């Protein structure tokens, strides 16, 4: 199980990392425009969606991922997810912040 679990963890981490970072970038765009109370509510929904996808999305309740397999894939899943998420989001995040700073 060792090597294959690591492979599954890495693959899943990369996949979920790409999906959640796309969600995060979309959220930044919503945040950058927000002006009202209702916009805040919308953003909160999007924030809640990210950790839910990481550790409790529909994929985690499938037959393939049981408690045992989760414990064996987690050591490779989480670092892969963190690395992909940071790599994908860092550039747009910095760009948005620079733009915000120049607007102030």
């Amino acid at each position, binding site marked *: 199980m060792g090597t294959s679990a690591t492979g599954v963890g890495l693959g899943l981490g990369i996949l979920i990392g790409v999906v959640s970072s796309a969600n995060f970038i979309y959220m930044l765009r919503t945040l950058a425009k927000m002006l*009202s109370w209702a916009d*805040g509510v919308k953003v909160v929904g999007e924030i809640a969606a990210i*950790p839910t996808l990481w550790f409790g999305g529909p994929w985690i309740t499938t037959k393939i991922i049981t408690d045992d397999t989760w414990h064996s894939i987690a*050591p490779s899943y*989480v670092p892969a997810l963190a*690395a992909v998420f940071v790599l994908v989001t860092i550039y747009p995040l910095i760009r948005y912040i620079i733009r915000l700073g120049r607007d*102030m």
Partner: protein
Amino acid sequence: MDFARIAFGGLAGALAGALISFTLLVERRNYKKTGRRNVWPTVWVTGVCLAGIVILGVRPQLRANISTPALVIGFFATAFMALLVAYLSSKEVLPAPRATPILDSVTYRARQKINQGEFGQALELAGRALAGSSRDLGAYIEKGRALKRLGRVQEALQTVEEGLKVKADDPRLLYNRACYLTLLRQDASHDAVILADLQTAIRLMPKLKGSVAMDPDLENVRHLKAFEGVFKGAA
């Protein structure tokens, strides 16, 4: 598993730090632009992030899988970095970001095209943005600007009036309507609307004062006696 705990903690902290600092910066930017405070989005986002951190700390199963020092370091490092980058860019120490098609909104790209003098392409991009969302106020503004620069001022005026149907008190749209009405001005019939638009625009977005005083588009109304009242009435 230790590496996973550190990665999880760092990622959760960084996400919370990035969101809270970003929301604070947006609130500050909006306040500077409109002169109106709206702290609710900041309160919402901060509340949810802090609640998430508390849940991580309270639930034993989650606490066992997360490194608290990594969470704290991730939070403060990201927040500090975001605020530092914003400060440096507000002082123009950092260069302005260039537009890249994948990351930037169509409206932003339309604005870039206008600044580069490519008005036809800007018009096409703004049209695409409006096709995607008829509530995109920025797209109405950029479409109007592109049309005006192409010499189609009457159409530019119609565009900002469509935008004002979406949001009647948007200061940028009001300002642009005043400019286009002034450019089309042949008699005094629209002067009251022009002056009222400028007054409201300045009241809602005080930084427009400079533009109202200097913009060549407003040359035809600057000689009016009531023009000075625009600044006084907005104060």
